[in-house]
């Protein structure tokens, strides 16, 4: 087992602008994160915390289109073998047709797709399309979900599962308690890769979760890091790289 933590780092393409979001992506890769989660901004996000929503809104105001997101992902996958997951909402996946969207995700070189508001029993065919295109469709499960929901998800036979570690929405502080660890253990027992996150922002939290998951998802904290660098006029690359490194190296 590596002594470094495996991080799935969340990034919003074109935030704060094209060039600096590319800097942020490179910084994450150079710092050694294990996965990138690229969120396509959507006008009506139902599961974003205020920090990510604000970043997405500003990107949309600048005219973001889905094709810009795919182009961004294509650049990353050309630059690095780090697997990229695209995360977005049902509205954007459904608009061009689920099949076309999934094909575009694959064509961009991404490894998988995360759509929190396409639950397994209202999936619009995204799992079938994913299987056809050999794309990893990642269901989101929540700590505290009733057994019937977990069973329904498991029945889809996903290869990866995104485990949200608290009720509610990204961003607030998450305590890693016994119940959370139990939850992670039970999902791992399905024989899937588990990406666990929601509210993780410190090396201590990463260290607490890392050994129980395939990767620790960190989202809001990276967006805040970028926002802070922009506001203080400092380098986005440097800020993101040093924060990412502190998380990756938390177990040392």
């Amino acid at each position, binding site marked *: 087992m590596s002594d470094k933590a495996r991080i799935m780092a969340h990034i919003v393409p074109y935030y704060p602008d094209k060039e600096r979001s590319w800097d942020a992506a490179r910084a994450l890769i150079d710092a050694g994160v294990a996965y990138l989660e690229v969120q396509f901004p959507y*006008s*009506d996000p139902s599961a974003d915390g205020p920090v990510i929503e604000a970043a997405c809104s500003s990107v949309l105001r600048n005219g973001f289109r889905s094709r810009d997101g795919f182009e961004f992902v294509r650049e990353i996958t050309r630059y690095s073998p780090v697997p990229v997951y695209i995360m977005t909402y049902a509205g954007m996946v459904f*608009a061009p047709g689920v099949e076309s969207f999934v094909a575009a995700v694959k064509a961009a070189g991404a490894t998988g797709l995360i759509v929190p508001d396409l639950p397994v029993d209202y999936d619009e065919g995204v799992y079938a399309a994913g299987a056809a295109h050999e794309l990893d469709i990642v269901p989101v499960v929540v700590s505290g979900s009733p057994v019937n929901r977990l069973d329904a998800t498991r029945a889809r036979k996903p290869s990866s599962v995104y485990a*949200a570690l608290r*009720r*509610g*929405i990204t961003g607030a502080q998450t305590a890693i308690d016994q119940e959370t660890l139990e939850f992670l253990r039970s999902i791992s027992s399905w024989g899937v890769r588990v990406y666990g996150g929601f509210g993780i922002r410190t090396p201590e939290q990463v260290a607490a979760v890392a050994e129980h998951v395939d990767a620790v998802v960190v989202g809001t904290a990276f967006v805040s890091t970028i926002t802070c660098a922009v506001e203080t006029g400092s380098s986005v690359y440097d800020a993101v790289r040093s924060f990412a490194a502190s998380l990756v190296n938390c177990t040392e």
Partner: protein
Amino acid sequence: MPELYNDYFGEFGGRYVAEVLRPALDELESAFKNSMREPAFAAEFDEIASTFVGRPTPLLHASNASRALGGAQIYIKLEGLANTGAHKINNAVGQALLARQMGKTRIIAETGAGQHGVATAAVCAKLGLNCRIYMGEIDIARQRPNVFWMELFGAEVVPVTTGARTLKDAVNEALRDWAASFPDTHYIIGSALGPSPYPDMVREFQSVIGRETVMQTTQRGLDVVALIACVGGGSNAIGFFYPYLDLPSPALIGVEAGGTGTETGLHAARMTGEGRPGIVHGYKSLFLVDDDGQVEDTHSISAGLDYPGIGPQLASLGATHRVEFTRATDRESLDALRFFARNEGVVFALESAHAAAEAIKRAPNYPAETAIIVNMSGRGDKDLFITARALEPERWREFLLSEVSGIEHDLSRADAALAAAEENR
């Protein structure tokens, strides 16, 4: 016999929400199904409907207007005479009773213009439930009078500062609250849309409008050829049309917001060409969205129609042509409002005035012995600041200025009194 719970209506509807909200909706679905089977629940609803809401609402023969237009007799279902001024209260009562039955002690709701917020706040005051209303910062600035009423009823009105700071952002904020709070909290959605079971549930609570209409028109032996309702999310329309859906007639006509033109951003009409299938706010329906699925800007003089989506059941009824859709512009709606005020002594809410405008266009096409029923889903008192500004801007401006100077005078006298009291101490 129509189904109580459908989930999907043709291709539209569904429950497209993240897992975090799923237990809340699953619990709500079963509570809804159980309660609607209980005679005691219906009795409680009827009791509050008659003593608090003011039901049944009257059916007015608009005889002067009908004579002036020639053609069909226009009847107006005066839904706007319900407590708090609109049909919104029917749904608020139903859902609040359901919440209480589920053991929830706290209510949250989103509101755009404020009518749903006012109805919800009033019902919570009546039933003794804690109430928090999410409202976009921009809407709060535009709709101060409604914020005043909500707070008077004891609700906490929380400004939403994310996104566009309007209705859709208030929905997102309410969902965010609910995702963490549903064990003790119920979220009252204000229209017949959102993830299932909301479209079915809101329609059930609003169908009291349609049931009364059937009774009132039958009692008077009317030959009803058309029902006309405005359509934003569509809760007044679906409730009004509901008993007639499985019948071949009368014509059921939904009127959307034509705004100031047909270009994107100037209207909120989804059913006459511009709407596309989409998934937004947890349900599949027709929306004003672009190629990427991003929600587009909308406009209407009536805040209640200024929403990019339509309830899934109405979208489906449009696809099967049981409901016919048309639009009325801001101007036509204002003209209709003035026409019925002058001829009948009733003031339509700007939303409902869209339906009134369609009645004016259509009545002359029918024989005089037939009847058209227009649902006046709300009354126009709430629109005073918009209507007066649009119809007589100069005199309204003078009035507002004199109000401002009056308030300033009061405040400076209060300040002076305070200063004097300090000095005497």
